[in-house]
């Protein structure tokens, strides 16, 4: 019997590893899906290492469905330890496939997570310029 959500989605929803806030975050990305109303916040902590900017830590808070929570946790997992450029290449399809495929109706949750990370990185870069 096929269930709506994969085991991976349920696991990341029930036991997210990257849930929470980062105090003095380097960047914060707030994003909202205007259609369904899900709200997501991604925090990143950036460190410089050998001239490269690396995402040292990344956390999230999400008011949304099980898929949105799982996608939030997954984008954090995929972004952690990556350079900013590399993290920006993580697409919603990567998130979805890592979660054992989101149901078609829920792909927008992965897009929301992708946007959330992008906005956190943009926030960091904006702060850096100031």
């Amino acid at each position: 019997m096929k269930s709506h959500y994969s085991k991976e989605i349920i696991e990341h929803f029930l036991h997210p590893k990257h849930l929470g806030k980062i105090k003095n975050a380097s960047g914060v990305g707030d994003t909202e899906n205007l259609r369904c109303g899900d709200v997501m916040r991604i925090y990143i902590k950036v460190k410089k290492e050998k001239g490269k900017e690396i995402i040292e830590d990344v956390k999230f808070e999400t008011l949304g469905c099980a898929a949105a929570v799982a996608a939030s946790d997954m984008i954090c997992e995929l972004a952690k330890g990556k350079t900013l450029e590399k993290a920006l290449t993580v697409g919603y399809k990567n998130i979805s496939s890592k979660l054992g495929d989101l149901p078609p109706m829920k792909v927008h949750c992965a897009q929301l997570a992708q946007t959330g990370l992008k906005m956190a990185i943009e926030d960091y870069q904006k702060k850096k310029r100031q």
Partner: protein
Amino acid sequence: MAKIYLDYAATTPVDPNVLKAMSPYFKKDFGNPSSIHGFGQKALGAVDEAREKLANFLGCDATEIVFTGSATEANNLAIFGLVGKGDHIITSQIEHHAVLEPCQILEKRGVEVTYLPVTKEGLVDPDQVKKAIRPNTVLVSIMYANNEIGTVQPVAEIGQFLKSKAQNPKPKIYFHTDAVQAVNYLDCNVKNLGVDLLTISSHKIYGPKGVGSLFVRKGVPLKPIIYGGGHERGLRSGTENVAGVVGLGQAVEEIQNPKLKIQNIRIRQLRDKIIKRITKIIPDSRLNGSPKLRLPNNINISFKGVEGEALVIALDQKGIAVSTGSACSSKSLKPSHVLLALGLSQEQAHGSLRISLGKFTTEKEIEKFLKVLPSVVKRLREISGYK
């Protein structure tokens, strides 16, 4: 882990007596009621008997019962079968999609539709129905009890007014009610309600899925929407779902069992206990709909800082089945039109939970649910960063 089902407004399990009544008509007595031989006549007799049972329950004549493939079809038949270009329909903003969508389609075909607003508690004001009447109004369709928030509408009051209006001969305004959620709990006598058309679903009353019924008062100029054989006095062609119809008849008979009255009081008490406990122990929770004019089995509560679909999935992981009006759970990604019509914000609708009880719900199950729910809400509030 025993699963706990608290979603009786979505569907109900088939009652053992219903299943027993149905079983001969799959194999042994499989005849087509239109056949004139013995096999057919036996099936026809069973369909007629079920029709009598429904007529008895509704206080109408057996010839006024039309069996359909679902309550959705019955609603479609009531609306499309009666209304044409240039006509006017009065309905409410909180009807089931099976009423709203036919109305929306008719609007595109030159029919005027008034969608009456409801009060904060989800009630239609009968005065607004009166005020909405136009010279070309042919149909008023107001549901008996709402499927999401359980609000019971003043159907008899509206029916009485429309009947008095009917003294004035032209044009006659027909009154339809979708009684799907009401049948288990409320008086459905069509004379008391003053309705001309009434929709029933089988699978909401411990009958099988795939069968519904429309009461059509004698003289209502209804046209069919399905053609080909002239079954159901020409109003619904297609070989009767004999076992299903028998099941519906038996389900209606079970409802008339006097024991059910006590059963319903028990359900109402469980409902009140759930509402009281949840709103007391979970901060930022509020009841949606009316505290008083409410089906005995319906609870609808919004939690701030929680998304309903996530809540349903998390509870499902704990073996508890409930429902939500959240956008995330709908195919359209829109929050419940019913909750929005009450004036709830998108966020409040987002965090709504519907708990619907039934005759197999036990006190023990409710205790378990009430034990699990607060921790699940708390956890989801951690995830959303709420407070």
